[in-house]
C-alpha cells in the first residue's frame, strides 16, 4: 500500500506503507544512530514526534523481548528508507513491520530519507503527517496538527501511579527492598527503563513517581537521592516539576538526565531554548571541562539550556557539546546536584558515560541518613 | 561551480591486481594535480578504497563508482565535463575509450582511434611497415592451425599471447610445435573471441621508453634497459636507467622510432614503446598509448614531471608551453648544452637539457649522475601452488628502486630492498638448465671470490668443478636425504639460483625446490640474467655504508652531493 509523508507547506514524499494504516501527525525529526531502532521506538522522549532514521536499513535484527525502553511505541510514526521483513538476530521475536502493525503504528518506507533529513536540517523541525489516506489528507493533517510545543507530553507519558524497580526489574512499591542498599526516587517525565536498570545494577532500588508529584510527596519516600528523568516536550511547560525540583534541592542529592537536567537548570534560574532540529543520535561529542576529555554520547533532545543563563546561579556548566557549544552538563555542588543533557544510560548509544550513575550512587551514599 | 570553469574527468584504475598496481594511481593523482594547476576542475572516478586518488581531498570532486562506461558517462553528464582522461588509469580506463567516444563523451588526449590502432595487430603492423620500423616476424591468428602455420614461417621459438590483455596473462614462449599445440587453447581462452598473437621470439636485450607527445614535439624523458633478456615480462624484469648494455647509437635509434610512432599516431600525452634488440637492431614489441608502470619511477629519477606534461598535452597544451620540446632529456646536459631550468607551469622544474636523438646517439658523455635500478617484488609466500619461475606472464605485486651514483650500488640497494640477503654466511645453491651452465660458472666464480660458499646438484656441480670452482655436492630430492630441500629447511641457504628448462617449468624436482624456497623464505632467482646482476652486486658491495645516502632532490641537484652521514658509534 502507498503512503505519503507531507508537510504543512504541501511538500510531500511518497513511499510504501509500513505497519498500520491511517494518518499520524507529529513533529518531524531525524535520528542519526545506526543501531537501536527498538529503543528509539519505545523511548518516551519521542512522544509526539515522527522519527526519520537516517540510517537506511532498519529492522535488521527484529524486535526482541529485552530492549524496550517503555511499554508502548512512543513516536507517532516512523520513517525509514528500507525496513527488514526477515530479521536475523538470535534474540529476535518479531519483525519490525509486524510489531508496528500489532501496535497500530503508522509508518512509511521506501522514500528518500536523506532528502527528508536535509529538509529538516535546512528548515528545522516542523509538523508533518504520515498517511495511507492520500496526499491531500496528509497535507491537511499536517496543516491542522497541534504544534509540538503546545502539547504537554510529559503528562501523557508519565506513570499513573508509583511503582518500584529493583535488581530483578519491576516490582510493587510495597514489596520489601531486598538486597538494595540505597533508595532512589525517580520523577518520571518520560523515563527510559535503562536508567532504572543502571541503578539496579549498582544496588539501588528505585521508586518511580508521577511527574506531578510535589517535593513533599517525593521526600515522604525518604530517598537517598532523586533522579529527574528524561522526557519529551518543552521544559517551559513544566512549572510544577521545576517547583518540585526547587523544593528538593539542598534536601536530597538530585541527578537530572536530559529533560531532567533542563528542569534542574530552570530550578536555579536558567533558561532553555528550542534547537533548530535538535540533537538525536549516538555520536555526539561532549567535552568534560573539568578534565579536557571528550566522550561520545547518546542524545535525544530538541531543547537546550541557554549557555549564559546560568551565570550568577549556583550552577556551573561542566560539559559542552564539541559541535555547537551547547550546554551538556551542569553541576550545583553546593546542593549535591548535577545533570547531563545526554543519555548516560545509552540504549541506544555508547556506554562511555555510565560512570555518572556510579558517581551519583557515591553522592547518595555520602548523604545516606538511614 | 563557476560558470566559466572547465571540468575534466580523470579515470582511476580500479582494484589493484597483478599487472595494474599502485603506479597507475600515481598517474591519476598527478593528472589531477596538473589539471588543477592548469585551472581545471578535476573530477575523479574510481572504486579502489586503498588509494590516494580516492582520498576525498585529492580532486575537486570524487565519485566513488566503478570505472565502467555507464558510471563514467553519468558522471560526465552530471559534471558537464569537457571530456575524460583515460590514459592514466591503466588498461581499465583505456579500454573504455572507444565506448565512451561512441556515447558522445570526448576523450581528452590521444584519440580513441589511435588507442584502437595500437591494440589492433593488423593496423599496427601496417603502420610499422609503412614507417619502416622493424618488429619480430609474426601476426595475429584466429585458430591453432593458423598459429602453427605462422610459427613454421617464423621458426621456433615463438612467443604466443592473447591480444588486449594487460600483464601478459596467458602468454608463453613455445619451443616446439608440440608445445604450441599444448598451450594454444590457454592463450585463446585468456580473452575469448579476440585473436592470438604469434611472433618469433628473440632472446635479446629489452628496453622500453615512455615518451610524451603533443602531436608536434615528442620528449623522451629516458631510456630504460631490462636486465633480464626477452622472455621475462617487463613488469617482472629488473630495469636500469640510464642503460648500460645498450649503445647510445641504439638508444638514439629507439628514441627516433618512438618519436615517429608518437607523431604518426597523433599521441597527445604518454606513449610506452617496448623494444627487443636483435643484435643492434631495435625491434618494436609493444606500443601502448597510455601511462605505463614505469612512469612514476622515471619521473622521479629524471626530474621530468611526466604526468603533468602529458596532461597538459592531453588538454591541448604543448610541450614548448611547458618549457620542454623534442628530444632526449639529459639530466646532465651534454657538453656545450646549457642547462635549462624547465618550468612553465611546473616551475621550478629540475635543471637539465634536451638533446636531439642524433646528438644523444653520437655522444658518450654521461647524461645522468645517478643510476636507478628497479627490482620486482613477489608475494609467492601467500599463494600456495603458484609457480614462481619468471616468464612472459607477470607475477610480481610490487617493486623497489635502488638509487645511487654507481650502477653497482644501485643494483645492490635494489636487490637488498627486494628481499635478497647479502650476508656471506649460508650457502648459495646453483642448479641451472644446460643453456645457462656456462654463465653459471662465471657467476659462481664471482660468488666464491666474494666470500660465498656454493652448492649444486650433480649436473651443475660437474660444470662448476670442471671449471675449477669449489662446490659442494647436494643430492636432488629424489636422491634421498640429506638433499637440497633438507638444506633449505636447515636455514643454511642464503640464496637459490634455479633456472627452469625453457618450455618445461613443470619438472617436479625443480618446482619443489622453488616452492620450498618460498616456504622457507629463501630468495630464489630463476633467470640467469638476474643471477649475473646479483653476482655483480655481491662482488661490489657487502657493506651498506659504502653506498651513498642522499635524498632524491640531492641526487638530481646539480650541486655536488653533500657528504655521507657520519654515524655515531
Amino acid at each position: 500500500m502507498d503512503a505519503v509523508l507531507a508537510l504543512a507547506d504541501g511538500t510531500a514524499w511518497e513511499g510504501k506503507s509500513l505497519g498500520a494504516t491511517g494518518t499520524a501527525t507529529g513533529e518531524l525529526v531525524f535520528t542519526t544512530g545506526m543501531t537501536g531502532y527498538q529503543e528509539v521506538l519505545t523511548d518516551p522522549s519521542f512522544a509526539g514526534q515522527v522519527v526519520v532514521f537516517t540510517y537506511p536499513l532498519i529492522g535488521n535484527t527484529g524486535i526482541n523481548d529485552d530492549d524496550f525502553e517503555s511499554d508502548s511505541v512512543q513516536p507517532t510514526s516512523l520513517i525509514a528508507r528500507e525496513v527488514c521483513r526477515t530479521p536475523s538476530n538470535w534474540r529476535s521475536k518479531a519483525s519490525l513491520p509486524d510489531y508496528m502493525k500489532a501496535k497500530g503504528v503508522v509508518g512509511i518506507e521506501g522514500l528518500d530519507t536523506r532528502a527528508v533529513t536535509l529538509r529538516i536540517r535546512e528548515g528545522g523541525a516542523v509538523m508533518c503527517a504520515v498517511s495511507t489516506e492520500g496526499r491531500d489528507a496528509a497535507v491537511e493533517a499536517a496543516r491542522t496538527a497541534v504544534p509540538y510545543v503546545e502539547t504537554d507530553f510529559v503528562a501523557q507519558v508519565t506513570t499513573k501511579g508509583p511503582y518500584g524497580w529493583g535488581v530483578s526489574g519491576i516490582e510493587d512499591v510495597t514489596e520489601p527492598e531486598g538486597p538494595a542498599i540505597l533508595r532512589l526516587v525517580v520523577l518520571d517525565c518520560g523515563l527510559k527503563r535503562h536508567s532504572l536498570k543502571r541503578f539496579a545494577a549498582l544496588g539501588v532500588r528505585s521508586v518511580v513517581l508521577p511527574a506531578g508529584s510535589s517535593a513533599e510527596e517525593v521526600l515522604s519516600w525518604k530517598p537517598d537521592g532523586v533522579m529527574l528523568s528524561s522526557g519529551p516536550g518543552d521544559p517551559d511547560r513544566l512549572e510544577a516539576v521545576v517547583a518540585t525540583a526547587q523544593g528538593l534541592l539542598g534536601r536530597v542529592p538530585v541527578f537530572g538526565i536530559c529533560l531532567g537536567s533542563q528542569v534542574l537548570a530552570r530550578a536555579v534560574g536558567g533558561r532553555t531554548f528550542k534547537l533548530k532540529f535538535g540533537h538525536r543520535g549516538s555520536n555526539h561529542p561532549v567535552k568534560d571541562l573539568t578534565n579536557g576529555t571528550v566522550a561520545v554520547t547518546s542524545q535525544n533532545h530538541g531543547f537546550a539550556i541557554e549557555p549564559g543563563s546560568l551565570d550568577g546561579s549556583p550552577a556551573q556548566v561542566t560539559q559542552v557539546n564539541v559541535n555547537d557549544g551547547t550546554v551538556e552538563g551542569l553541576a550545583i555542588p553546593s546542593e549535591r546536584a548535577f545533570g547531563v543533557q545526554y543519555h548516560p544510560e545509552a540504549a541506544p548509544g555508547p556506554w562511555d558515560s555510565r560512570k555518572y550513575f556510579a558517581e551519583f550512587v557515591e553522592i547518595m551514599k555520602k548523604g545516606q541518613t538511614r | 561551480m563557476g560558470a566559466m570553469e572547465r571540468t575534466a574527468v580523470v579515470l582511476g584504475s580500479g582494484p589493484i591486481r597483478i599487472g595494474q598496481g599502485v603506479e597507475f594511481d600515481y598517474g591519476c593523482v598527478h593528472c589531477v594535480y596538473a589539471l588543477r594547476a592548469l585551472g581545471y576542475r578535476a573530477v575523479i572516478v574510481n572504486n579502489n578504497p586503498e588509494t590516494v586518488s580516492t582520498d576525498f581531498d585529492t580532486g575537486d570532486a570524487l565519485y566513488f563508482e566503478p570505472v565502467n562506461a555507464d558510471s563514467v558517462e553519468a558522471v560526465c553528464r552530471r559534471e558537464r565535463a569537457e571530456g575524460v582522461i583515460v590514459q592514466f588509469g591503466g588498461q581499465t580506463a583505456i579500454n573504455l575509450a572507444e565506448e565512451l567516444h561512441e556515447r558522445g563523451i570526448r576523450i581528452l588526449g590521444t584519440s580513441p582511434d589511435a588507442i584502437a590502432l595500437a591494440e589492433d595487430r593488423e593496423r599496427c603492423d601496417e603502420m610499422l611497415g609503412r614507417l619502416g620500423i622493424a618488429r619480430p616476424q609474426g601476426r595475429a591468428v584466429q585458430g591453432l592451425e593458423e598459429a602453427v602455420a605462422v610459427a613454421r614461417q617464423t621458426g621456433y621459438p615463438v612467443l604466443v599471447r592473447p591480444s588486449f590483455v594487460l600483464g601478459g596473462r596467458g602468454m608463453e614462449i613455445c619451443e616446439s610445435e608440440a608445445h604450441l599445440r599444448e598451450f594454444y587453447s590457454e592463450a585463446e581462452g585468456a580473452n575469448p573471441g579476440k585473436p592470438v598473437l604469434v611472433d618469433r621470439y628473440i632472446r635479446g636485450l629489452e628496453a622500453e621508453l615512455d615518451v610524451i607527445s603533443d602531436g608536434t614535439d615528442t620528449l623522451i624523458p629516458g631510456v630504460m634497459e631490462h636486465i633480464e633478456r626477452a622472455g621475462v615480462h617487463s613488469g617482472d624484469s629488473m630495469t636500469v636507467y640510464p642503460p648500460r648494455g645498450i649503445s647510445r647509437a641504439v638508444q638514439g635509434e629507439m628514441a627516433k622510432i618512438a618519436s615517429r610512432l608518437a607523431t604518426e599516431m597523433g599521441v597527445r600525452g604518454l606513449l610506452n614503446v617496448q623494444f627487443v634488440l636483435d643484435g643492434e637492431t631495435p625491434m618494436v614489441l609493444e606500443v601502448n598509448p597510455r601511462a605505463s608502470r614505469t612512469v612514476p619511477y622515471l619521473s622521479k629519477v629524471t626530474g621530468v614531471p611526466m604526468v603533468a606534461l602529458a596532461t597538459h598535452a592531453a588538454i591541448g597544451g604543448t610541450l614548448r608551453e611547458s618549457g620542454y620540446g623534442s628530444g632526449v632529456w639529459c639530466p646532465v646536459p651534454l657538453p656545450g648544452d646549457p642547462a635549462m631550468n624547465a618550468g612553465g607551469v611546473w616551475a621550478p622544474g629540475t635543471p637539465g637539457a634536451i638533446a636531439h636523438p642524433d646528438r644523444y646517439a653520437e655522444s658518450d658523455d654521461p647524461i645522468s649522475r645517478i643510476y636507478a635500478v628497479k627490482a620486482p617484488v613477489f608475494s609467492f609466500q601467500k599463494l600456495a601452488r603458484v609457480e614462481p619461475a619468471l616468464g612472459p606472464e607477470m607475477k610480481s605485486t610490487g617493486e623497489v628502486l635502488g638509487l645511487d651514483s654507481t650502477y653497482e650500488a644501485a643494483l645492490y640497494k635494489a636487490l637488498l630492498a627486494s628481499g635478497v640477503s647479502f650476508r656471506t654466511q649460508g650457502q648459495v645453491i646453483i642448479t641451472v638448465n644446460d643453456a645457462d651452465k656456462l654463465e653459471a660458472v662465471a657467476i659462481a666464480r664471482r660468488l666464491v671470490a666474494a666470500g660465498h660458499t656454493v652448492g649444486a646438484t650433480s649436473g651443475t656441480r660437474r660444470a662448476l668443478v670442471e671449471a675449477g670452482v669449489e662446490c659442494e655436492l647436494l643430492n636432488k630430492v629424489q636422491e634421498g636425504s640429506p638433499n637440497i630441500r633438507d638444506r633449505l629447511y636447515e636455514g643454511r641457504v642464503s640464496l637459490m639460483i634455479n633456472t627452469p628448462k625453457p618450455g618445461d617449468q613443470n619438472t617436479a624436482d625443480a618446482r619443489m625446490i622453488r616452492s620450498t624456497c618460498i616456504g622457507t623464505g629463501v630468495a630464489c632467482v630463476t633467470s640467469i640474467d638476474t643471477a649475473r646482476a646479483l653476482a655483480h652486486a655481491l662482488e661490489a658491495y657487502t657493506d651498506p655504508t659504502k653506498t651513498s645516502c642522499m635524498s632524491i632532490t640531492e641526487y638530481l641537484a646539480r650541486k655536488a652531493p653533500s657528504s655521507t652521514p657520519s654515524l655515531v658509534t
Partner: protein
Amino acid sequence: MKILVIGSGPIVIGQAAEFDYAGTQACRALREEGCEVVLINSNPATIMTDPETADAVYIEPLTVDFCERVIAKERPEGLLATLGGQTGLNLASQLAAAGVFEKYGVRLLGTKLESIQMAEDRELFRALMREIGEPVPESWIVESESDLEALLDTVPYPCIVRPAYTLGGTGGGVAYDREALWEIGRKGLKLSMRSQLMVERSLLGWKEVEYEVMRDSAGTCITVCNMENLDPMGVHTGDSIVVAPSQTLTDIEYHMLRTASLKIIRALGIEGGCNVQLAVNPDSFDYYIIEVNPRVSRSSALASKATGYPIARVAAKIALGMRLDEIPNSITGTTKASFEPSLDYCVVKIPRWPFDKFVSGDRTLGTQMKATGEVMAIDRTFEGALVKAVAGLEVRNKDLDDLGYRKATEEELAEFVRVPTDGRLWALAEALRRGWTIAEVNRLSKVDPWFLEKIKGAVQSPPPNPIAYKMVDTCAGEFDSRTPYYYATCEAESDMVADPS
C-alpha cells in the same frame, strides 16, 4: 620539528596501496602543522615518494643500516612508524633494539613501542586482556618444533595457526588434524620474525566484526567505524567481503563490542589509530578478541573511505600531541575529529584475487591473505552496493550470475557453498537462485541469514540503476558539508554539487 616517516616498502599481498594513502596523508598533515618531513621508502611507484610530498625523500632499502644513515644525516627529532604498516613497525622495533633512537636522540611519535609490543606479542597481549577482563580464545604459544610436537595431541581441532610478526598472516592456516598442524606449524616457525607462533581454538562460523578506533594522548577515544565480515570467522579479513556498518548486531551488541574495543586501546595506551577484530557468537552475547593492530591498516583505509573520516591524517596529528577535539573534521569543516561518523548508506568491500593470473593457485581462502586489492561500493541499499562492487571488480562476472556454478551439480554446489574460495559469493547466489532455503545455505556456509536474504533479493530482482548522487559527509546529513565526495544511488533527489570555494 623534523620528523622521519617510514613507508611500507614494496607492494605485497597484505601490504598494498593503503599505506601510500596513509603515508601521503600523514606527510601532508605533518607539514600542515609546520613540521619538516623526511621520508624513507624503497617503493618508487607511490605518491608518498614524490619530492613534493615530503621535504626530503630517501628512496632507500628499509633496513636498520640504511635507516640509521638517514637518521644520522638528517637528525630528525621524531619518528613516525605507525603509518608504514607492519614493515614500518618492525623497522622501528629493530631500530630501537639496535639503540639507534637513543644514539641520535630520536623520539618515537604516536603509539609507544611498548604498546606496540604489547599488542603484537601474543603472551603479553593475552596477559593484558586477562587483566582488563576481555576474553581471548584459548591458545598455546609455540617457539620450537618440540613445542609443536607436544601440542599435537592436546589442542582441539580444527585449530588456527598464526605466526607472530609477519605480514598479513603469512604462513598461517587452519589445521583440521595433527598432520596439518605439524605441516603448517613448521612453516610458520620459519616465517616468523621471532620464530614464534600461536595455535588457537577455532572460532570457525562465528561472526567477525572489526572496530576502527582512535585515541589521543588526553585519553579521548572514539570509534570511526565498525565493519562486519560477510564471511564468518576463518577467512582473513583481507579476503572477506566486508560491510560497513555492521548489519546484524543489535544496539546492545554493537556497543558491547565498541566498549570492549575502547577499553583495549585505553589499556594499550594507543596514541593514534588502531584496529580491533572480534569474533561474535551468532547465538549469544559471547565474544572473543581476535586481534589488535596498533597502527593504520588496510581496514583503516577502508574505514576512512567508507565514512569520510581521514584516519591516517588524524593519527599523524595525534602523534604530534594534538587532541581529537582540536583537530577539524576536514569533510564538514565545522565539526571536530572527536565526532563518530554516522553513515546514511551501506558500504560493501569485495577483495580482488589474483587467480585469473595464477590459474594453478590454491583458491581456498583461510587465515592467510591472498587478495592483491579490493573494490568498495556505496549505496543506499545493500543489494545496490553489492551489485555495484561486483560490477567494478573487473573479473569475468559482471553480475552475480556465474556460468560455471550454473553447471555444477547439487553436490558440487554444496561444496562451493561450504568451502570459502574467491568464487563463494557466486556460489551462494547460485544456490539461492536454485531455490535452496536460507537455512540450508546458512548451515553450509555459516553466512548470516540477513546477508543471504539480501543476496537472494539481488539475484531475484537486480537493483535498479542509480540515477541520483548523494554525498558522503560523515554525519548522515546532520551538518552542512562542503566536501564533494559522491556515490550514485537510486533515489529521488541528488545532493547539490558542492561549491568547493
